[in-house]
């Protein structure tokens, strides 16, 4: 074994000597003051360093969890955007091909859908009262929540959340306890469980998750964008 106290001490403390080498060095330590001092001092330094070990504070744990969850949500939205764009293009093509961009008469629609479109246009809701309901999302993309009312659409109890986009266009999110009936002429974008329709020049979209919802927007493209931003699917 080399007798350079620093090297010998470092190798010994690193625990990389085999049993026989360790035993020989330990015998040597009893006789060599230089090596003994080397090992004692470094051993003490190691104990001091070990005493600095800390447990991460709980708020930091929560902060890490929250930031990863937020990054994950943002990643999911980013991935969904191309899908929504494809769905939007397919839907608009289907609407054009079907001649459905010619306005459909609201009267041909199920009463709940016709009432939703009428309510969107007039701003009136049957049995309307200010709702205490919290918005599902207060701000999403360029949509900002304005307020909520509760009332009925052709007898179906709903809560209507009103949003405005950056350009001031109105988007209404209607939530009910049960599914909305499907609009006549509705299209089902591929790989989604939603339907979207142009009803009398207004965009109407229905999604059942996370809860039965109807989005009414100035046009079908606006309804698709709003549904994506509100996390409906």
């Amino acid at each position, binding site marked *: 074994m080399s007798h350079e106290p620093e090297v010998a001490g*470092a190798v010994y403390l690193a625990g990389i000597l085999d049993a026989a080498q360790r035993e020989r060095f330990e015998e040597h330590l009893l006789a060599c003051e230089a090596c003994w001092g080397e090992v004692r001092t*470094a*051993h*003490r*330094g190691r104990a001091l360093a070990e005493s*600095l070990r800390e*447990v991460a504070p709980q708020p*930091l744990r929560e*902060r890490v969890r929250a*930031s990863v969850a937020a990054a994950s949500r943002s990643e999911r939205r980013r991935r969904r955007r191309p899908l929504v764009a494809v769905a939007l293009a397919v839907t608009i093509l289907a609407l054009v091909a079907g001649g459905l961009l010619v306005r459909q008469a609201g009267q041909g629609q199920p009463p709940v859908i016709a009432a939703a479109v009428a309510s969107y246009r007039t701003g009136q809701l049957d049995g309307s009262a200010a709702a205490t309901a919290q918005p599902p999302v207060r701000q999403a993309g360029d949509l900002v929540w304005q307020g909520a009312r509760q009332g009925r659409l052709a007898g179906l109890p709903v809560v209507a959340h009103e949003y405005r986009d950056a350009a001031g266009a109105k988007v209404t999110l209607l939530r009910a306890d049960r599914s909305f009936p499907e609009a006549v002429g509705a299209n089902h974008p591929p790989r989604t469980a939603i339907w979207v329709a142009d009803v009398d020049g207004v965009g109407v979209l229905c999604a059942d998750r996370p809860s039965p919802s109807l989005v009414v927007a100035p046009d079908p493209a606006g309804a698709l964008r709003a549904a994506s931003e509100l996390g409906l699917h």
Partner: protein
Amino acid sequence: MATDDEFLQVTLPALDLVHNLARRFARGHADAEDLVQDTYLRAWQAWTAGNRPRRAEPWLATICLNLGRDQRRRASLRPEVTVEPENEPAADVDVEAAAIGRVERAQVEQALWALSEEQRIAITLMDIVGFTAAEVAGITGSPRGTVLARVHRGRKALARLVAKEAMRREP
């Protein structure tokens, strides 16, 4: 299970490790916690790109080390003070031991910051965090012999600095 849940299940057990390492890069608690968060976000990005480490601990330590070094370079922090134990006069080891026994944690922390960054990081990775010399070599990209020399000299310097300060404070 959602991907972020799976990621956190694999990586959160190493939070103490990342926290201890970040604390030796950033002196303030707030800066250290920012570095911890940045480390996890960077790891999450790699995870979503399909990176699945064999072991989370050295993976996170490497990310934290690289981010910490980048941040220090950008911040052009104070010049490092290197203490070489060879140049320190050897004191009586028993007197040192007695003084060290009465030392406070803050003094140890301060002494650790008086070492060179390389020694401080090597000591943190081996003695505070618990990696082997071979693992530290992998994380820092230095040969194992170099790691051992840094750790050994750093430990001696730490013991002597703390002892010196403790003896200075005693009446």
